[in-house]
């Protein structure tokens, strides 16, 4: 089954800076989704990009998808301390969805 792999595993930045996280996968997908996990909580859906889309924006989030390279990136602009969390990409096939190991983002005030 396909599974996203995030890179880097951990990222530490200052408030106000941009944060970029990458996700690679191995098989064809229906869509790719990004989720956030705050400590002690479940995943919260952030954004979904379909396989025929190349870029999508939602507030301070920008997601790109390159199906030829089987990769995606999540950019968080003007980061805030409240963005501190783990971020997971999930690759959705026809009937299933699989998650990667996540990127742990720390935003220092």
């Amino acid at each position, binding site marked *: 089954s396909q599974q996203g792999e995030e890179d880097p595993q951990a990222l530490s930045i200052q408030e106000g800076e941009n944060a970029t996280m990458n996700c690679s996968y191995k098989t064809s997908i229906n869509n790719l989704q990004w989720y956030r996990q705050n400590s002690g909580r479940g*995943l919260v859906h952030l954004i979904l990009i379909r396989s025929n889309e190349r870029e999508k924006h939602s507030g301070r989030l920008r997601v790109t998808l390159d199906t030829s390279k089987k990769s995606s990136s999540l950019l968080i602009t003007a980061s805030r301390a409240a963005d501190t969390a*783990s971020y997971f990409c999930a690759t959705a096939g*026809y009937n299933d969805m699989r998650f990667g190991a996540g990127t742990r983002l720390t935003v220092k005030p």
Partner: protein
Amino acid sequence: GEEVAQTPKHLVRGEGQKAKLYCAPIKGHSYVFWYQQVLKNEFKFLISFQNENVFDETGMPKERFSAKCLPNSPCSLEIQATKLEDSAVYFCASIPSGTGVQPQHFGDGTRLSIL
């Protein structure tokens, strides 16, 4: 309800004991998914249900793990004869309908500690 409700929040069992976890999906959601997260790492898919029917069980360990979703009852995940390696946070998620590729709504998980 409006949220996926998982109970209990924490569960402690001695090795070899049985553990049973519960999940109430959002009202009206017909698909339920179970995941295992070990040490805050990746979410390992275990099993999914479409109403009370198993939809995909490719991630379920062959032994000791079982799950059910019965009408008018919370879904459950049961682990028989628990092992230390079963220590993890178990998450449940639900979606309204369709395939498993829609955004999923997650509960806050049950932390299972095997001593």
